[in-house]
C-alpha cells in the first residue's frame, strides 16, 4: 500500500466519555480529537486510568461516547445500526485484547476461523487461511488445542492470528504485551511491525510498555482523558 495516499481510517472529534461509577461520574475522556491514517503503526501511551482502553472501545463502537463524533472510513459510528456496526467490525477491525479473550470452548483453529465463518467464507478457504496465518504467528501444529492448553504468549498469538486472518483495515490492540514476558512481547511486536511494513495493515496500540513505544512510528500520549502530545517517530 502507498503510504502517501493518507486515507483517514479513524477520525475522532471532541470525544468525551463520562462513566457512571455507582452514581459518581468519572470523566474518562475529556474531548479527544485524533485522526488515524492507513498504514500507521501508532501507540497510544499514558498512565493507567488515562483513558486508553476507553478510547479504543469508543473508536471501534464497542462503547458509545458521551459526546463527540467518531467516523470509521468516513462513516459515522453513531449513525450505524447494531447490525451494520457488527458487519463493519467483522470486515474492517481486528481486535487484540490484553486478556486475549479467546472463546474458551473453541479450539485454536475454530477461534481463528470464527470471523470467516461469520463472513461466510467457504470451509476449504477458511482452513487454508487459518493454517497460513498460524504459520505467520509461529503457531504451527496447535490448531486442535483449546485456549486453556496454551501459554499466555501462545494465546496472544492466537488472538493476533484471529485479528489478522480476515485482513482488516485496522488492528486495534489494547495493551497486547501487558500479560507477556518481555521476550515474547518483543517477538510479537517485531512480527506485527514486519506485517505492517509488508502489507500496510494499520496498527493502533494502547500501551505503557517501553517495548511498544520504541517500535511505534507515532506516539500519542493521553493524560487525564486529553491528548497531551502527539509525535511522529524515526
Amino acid at each position: 500500500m502507498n503510504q502517501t495516499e493518507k486515507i483517514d481510517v479513524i477520525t475522532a472529534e471532541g470525544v468525551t466519555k463520562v462513566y457512571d461509577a455507582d452514581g459518581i461520574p468519572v470523566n474518562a475522556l475529556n474531548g479527544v480529537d485524533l485522526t488515524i491514517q492507513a498504514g500507521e503503526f501508532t501507540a497510544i501511551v499514558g498512565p493507567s486510568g488515562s483513558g486508553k482502553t476507553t478510547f479504543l472501545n469508543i473508536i471501534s463502537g464497542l462503547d458509545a461516547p458521551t459526546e463527540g463524533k467518531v467516523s470509521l472510513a468516513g462513516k459515522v459510528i453513531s449513525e450505524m445500526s447494531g447490525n451494520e456496526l457488527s458487519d463493519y467490525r467483522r470486515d474492517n477491525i481486528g481486535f487484540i485484547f490484553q486478556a486475549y479473550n479467546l472463546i474458551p470452548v473453541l479450539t485454536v483453529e475454530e477461534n481463528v476461523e470464527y470471523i470467516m465463518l461469520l463472513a461466510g467464507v467457504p470451509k476449504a478457504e477458511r482452513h487454508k487461511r487459518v493454517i497460513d496465518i498460524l504459520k505467520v504467528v509461529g503457531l504451527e501444529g496447535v490448531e486442535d488445542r483449546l485456549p486453556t492448553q496454551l501459554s499466555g504468549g501462545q494465546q496472544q498469538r492466537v488472538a493476533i492470528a484471529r485479528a489478522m486472518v480476515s485482513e482488516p483495515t485496522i488492528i486495534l490492540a489494547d495493551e497486547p504485551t501487558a500479560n507477556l514476558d518481555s521476550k515474547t512481547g518483543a517477538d510479537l511486536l517485531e512480527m506485527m511491525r514486519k506485517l505492517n511494513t509488508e502489507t500496510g495493515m494499520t496498527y493502533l496500540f494502547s500501551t505503557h510498555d517501553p517495548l511498544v513505544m520504541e517500535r511505534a512510528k507515532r506516539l500519542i500520549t493521553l493524560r487525564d482523558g486529553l491528548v497531551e502530545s502527539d509525535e511522529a517517530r524515526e
Partner: protein
Amino acid sequence: MMLKIAFRNIFRQKRRTILTALAMIVGFTLSSIVIGLSDGAYSNVIEMFTGNRIGHIQVHRAGYHDKPSIYKTISNYESIGKMIQNEDGVEAWTPRIYTGGLGSVDERSTAVRIIGIDVARENIATNFNKKVIEGNTLSETALHEVVIGEKLAKTLAATLGSKIVLFSQAADGSIANDEYTIVGIADSGDDITNRVACYLHIDDVQELFVLEGRVHEIVVIVSNINKVERISNAITERLHDTSLEVLPWYQVVKSFYDAMQKDKQGDAVARFIIVFIVAIGVLNTVLMSVMERTREYGVLKAVGTKPIQVFWLVIYEVVIITMGSIVIGAMLGVFFNYLLSVYGVSYAEGFTLAGVEFGKMYAEVNVACLLVPATTVFVSAVVVSLFPAIKAARIMPARAMRIH
C-alpha cells in the same frame, strides 16, 4: 453456524450442561410422577366405581334412570346385547333386573333389593364371582338360589343354607312370593348394596315378577374408559331407538362425577404449583449459565457477531439442552410411573369414597404425564432464556469484557 457453536458449547462445557440438564430432568420427572399418580388415582377411583359395579355404559328404557319403575323394561335384550357387542371397543355386556321387596329368614324381615343377573355374563363383565366372599356364587342355571349382601346376612341372622322368603308385587299385579336357598354371601364393595342386595338368577326373577324375557338394564363394559363417550354415541346410533336411553357412567352417577370434577380442580392448583416450582428451577439455572458468560458474549460481539446471532446462540443452547432433558425425563417419567402403576404406593391412611374403599394409589402412564412436564420445561426454559438472550444480544462489548 450459531447452531454449531451452540453444540460445541454444550459438549465442551459438560459441567454446566449437566447442571442445567439435571435441573430440567429432575423437574420433568417429578412433575411427571405427580401427574401420573394423581391421574392414576382418579382412574382407579373411576374404575372401582364403574368397572365392577355400574359398568361403563348403561342402557335402559327411556326415563328409567330418572324414575326407575318395574314396568320400564327392555324386552328384546338379547338382540340388543348382540348389537352392542358388535360395537368397536365393547368388551362385554350383561342384563339386570331390579326390583324391591321384603326378605324374611325365620322371624326376621327387612326390605331388600332384588337383583336378577345373568350369572355367566355378570362374571365376565363385573367379576361377580369374585364378590362372593363366603359360600358359592350362583349356578348358571336357575335353581332358586340367592347370594345376599354381607350386612343383610347379619341383619337377617342368615347363614349359608338358610332359606329366604322374598315377598313383593309382580309386574302383573299378582303377589310375588317364593323361597330361595342362600348359597353365598357377597361383598359388593359398597355399603348400601351390602345392606340390601339379594342376587338371584335372572330367570328366577323373571319368573317371580312375571317379567319373562324382560330386563331393566343392560350394563356395558368397554376396553378403554376414555372412549366411553364415543362408544356410547355409537351405541345410541346403532340401536336407533328413541324408547331406549344410553348413558355413559358419568351420567349414571352424575353427583359422584361432579364431586370428582370439583376435586380435580383442587388438584389442578397443586399441579400448577409444581409446574411453577419446576419453572423457577429452570429459570434459575438458565439465568445463571447465561450470566456467567457475559464476557464470552461480549467477545463474540466485539469480533463482529450480530446481536441477533448472539440471541440465537443463547436460545439454541437452551433449546438443545431442553430437548435432551425432555427425552431423558420422559424415559424416567415413564419408567417410574410404570413401576408405580404396578406396585403402587400406600396412602397414609386408606379412605372410603362413595362406599368404595381405597388403600393404595397406583400411577398411570398417560399422555398428560409426559405432555404437561414437557410443555412446562420447554416453555419455561425458552421464556426464561429470552430475557438473558436479549440481554446478551444487546450487551455493550466494552462493558462485558471489562476486567476489574
